[in-house]
């Protein structure tokens, strides 16, 4: 083959051509971070009340619960699946906690009921998708109606109120100064999911499945087991979000968290996760959550009516789909 016999066979291939730092500097995440900073500055000029730490702390509630789900959803979408039932899981979880509360269960039991309900819902989705091989979009559109339907049957027009005072901490408590418990959870799970997706072999398998599930299976990866775990994880995070939301509102209605699923998916896609699977990052989702929180808060301070706000969120959603495409065109 080779004429030079003294040389070892094959040539040395460099590990990397661009350093990880340079890659990060030209990333979608950095661009998004710039957007977040710009909105922050614009907001601080637009309203004198924006920079108040307590106002900012209050405003964080409009993204923390969704972001908790968005972390799990990001991994699910990277693996090529989606869960549209997350808002309905919140409704069912909240309803179950309400039933437990009416039965006189103490606070720790309420939390346990919340976590278990979320896990069961996730396991149900996961079983249908990974176990029976049904398409996730169809399954979770179905369970979206199913889970919330159960809440409507239980509650009708009514509501559960009267949660114990100790239960209020999850949605209303402060860990330190202006840092709410929800904000603390947001930071905690941002780190947990960031490590899980980017630093473990489980996370690597998720990327492999999203890029080519068949080849991943042919490489010895237990594809369906991982997909099941991802649904379980999304159910669990929805359960945690339900605990926070129910605690913050202090009541359960069957219409709780209506429309959350689209805002969660918007957050994930804005964070640079490909809706087709295979790419994306947790830092991107974290920044996207901040961007969406800042936009909503800024518009609220300017007294923009709710209907206009939903138009702007709609425009953001379309922009989110178009921007990554324009971005990759620009990079070439």
């Amino acid at each position: 083959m080779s004429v030079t016999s003294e040389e070892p066979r094959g040539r040395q291939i460099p590990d990397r051509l661009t350093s990880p730092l340079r890659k990060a500097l030209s990333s979608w995440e950095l661009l998004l971070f710039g957007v977040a900073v710009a909105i922050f500055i614009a907001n601080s000029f637009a309203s004198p009340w924006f920079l108040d730490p307590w106002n900012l702390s209050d405003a964080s509630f409009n993204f923390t619960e969704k972001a908790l789900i968005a972390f799990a959803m990001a991994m699910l979408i990277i693996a090529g699946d989606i869960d549209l039932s997350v808002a309905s899981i919140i409704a069912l979880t909240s309803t179950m906690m309400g039933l437990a509360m009416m039965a006189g269960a103490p606070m720790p039991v309420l939390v346990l009921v919340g976590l278990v309900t979320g896990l069961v819902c996730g396991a149900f989705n996961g079983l249908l998708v990974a176990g029976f091989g049904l398409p996730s979009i169809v399954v979770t559109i179905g369970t979206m109606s199913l889970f919330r339907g159960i809440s409507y049957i239980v509650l009708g027009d009514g509501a559960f109120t009267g949660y114990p005072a100790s239960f209020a901490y999850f949605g209303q408590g402060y860990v330190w100064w202006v840092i709410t418990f929800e904000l603390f959870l947001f930071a905690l799970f941002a780190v947990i999911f960031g490590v899980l997706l980017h630093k473990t072999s489980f996370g690597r398998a998720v990327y492999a499945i999203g890029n080519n599930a068949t080849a991943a299976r042919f490489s010895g990866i237990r594809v369906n087991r991982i997909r099941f775990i991802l649904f379980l994880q999304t159910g669990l995070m929805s359960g945690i979000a339900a605990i926070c939301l129910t605690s913050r509102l202090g009541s359960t209605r069957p219409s709780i968290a209506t429309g959350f699923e689209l805002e969660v998916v918007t957050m994930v896609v804005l964070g640079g996760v490909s809706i087709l699977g295979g790419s994306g990052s947790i830092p991107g989702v974290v920044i996207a959550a901040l961007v969406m929180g800042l936009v909503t808060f800024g518009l609220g301070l300017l007294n923009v009516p709710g209907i206009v706000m939903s138009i702007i969120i709609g425009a953001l959603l379309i922009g989110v789909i178009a921007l990554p495409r324009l971005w990759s065109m620009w990079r070439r």
Partner: protein
Amino acid sequence: MQAELNGPGDGAPVLSLRGISKSFPGVRALNAVQLDLYPGQVTALVGENGAGKSTIVKILTGIYQPDEGTIAVRGAETRFPTAQAAGEAGVTAIHQETVLFDELTVAENIFIGHAPRGRFGLIDKRRMEREAAEILASIGADLSPRVRLRDLGIASKHLVAIARALSIDASVVIMDEPTAALSHKEIHELYDLVAKLKAQGKAILFISHKFDEIFRIADRWTVFRDGQFVGEGLMGEVDEGRLVQMMVGREVDQIYPKRPARIGAPALTVAGYSHPTEFEDITFTLHEGEILGFYGLVGAGRSEVMQALFGITRPSKGACRTGDGIRVIRSTAEAIDAGIVYVPEDRGRQGAVRGLPIFQNVTLPSLSRTSKSGFLRLAEEFTLAREYTQRLDLRAASLDQDLGLLSGGNQQKVVIAKWLATKPKVIILDEPTKGIDIGSKAAVHDFMSELAAEGLAVIMVSSEIPEVLGMSDRVIVMREGRIAAEFAGEMMTPENLVRAAAGIRERNAA
């Protein structure tokens, strides 16, 4: 040659191809071939996989345009720029799997795309159904044109496909392995149909790997080999031995780097592996240092056996023994644990994870080794990827490069590197050089023989006879899901392999 032809209308060919060439990037699929089809006669087109049979069918049906050469219909030179043009010239094809529409009626299926029109350009349903009934009657199919296709069985659907091919009043009918998916009884009905079409004066091009049916129904033969025309003639003047010789008789112009290896202890023993539909009673032993070739026609069940050994599918019966005991492999993870790895034929779908960098592709099945309690260690990954990509002489800009950006041959090297990095005992290579360039091919062959010399047990599934003969210590031939024959040493000849694969009995030997 033009002596007593059976059937009416002998003499001038209805369709005549001369000097047809067709190239694809990197491959010359057809090189100045010729083909003549005569009215009322069946011409069998014979050749190995890759001889150019499918390409000529696509040229005849207007799907491909030839780079050079002429097509003449009844002596008049013509072109088939589109599938419609070929249809209008009277050429129609019955494929192995014709696309039909379950929700439409038999008549609608037959006439889809060229239904008779009435007033206002609307479909003349009554005329369509009447004509459909006529065509169905002409092929002896007892079907109502108004029945929805989904209510019919597979055999009836096949008849509809044939009726559809005949609905354009064809003078040339191409049958591309028409019996591949049919039962014994249906095959005989098809033979009757061929006889009817002959009697109607149609010219039939019959492509088949099965020699018994070629000798049964064909009047003439044409042999292609490696995209070249080898010869043609009347069936009565040839025997199986001569046809096989023409199919495979090429000069071995490639030199295979097979080194003599020390055949060691059994590395894998497979006993009675069976699958409800794909294969039956597969039993063989593979030794350390051995390259065992698996030859057979497409669809003989070779890949299915290999995928069962790799845990993709589960066998219904049988067991295998590796170094550490008898077992049934139930998942790919178990296969990898047992030291059995599989380089798949369908590289794009099953082998390469495009979108992930090269080094991550290499370490994918080895993550438990390169990571520590579930956490990735990039330095270890790069070390492993460097070692194995270098051994395979990979050409890439960096190990962090997206695998999808590499050429097919280099992607194949990464897939092989991925498996070698797991330090397997048995490596199964399924068509390892299919669709890759000559240079990479040589590198893969070279490497395969190096692995065997190091004591690895290698199974190579290949449909290329020179490769099988050039690289293997021993060859197993599969046919219709079973092991048909095993050859070693001087018995490993092209003729023996082709005979065993096509099911030709020894008494027919020339």
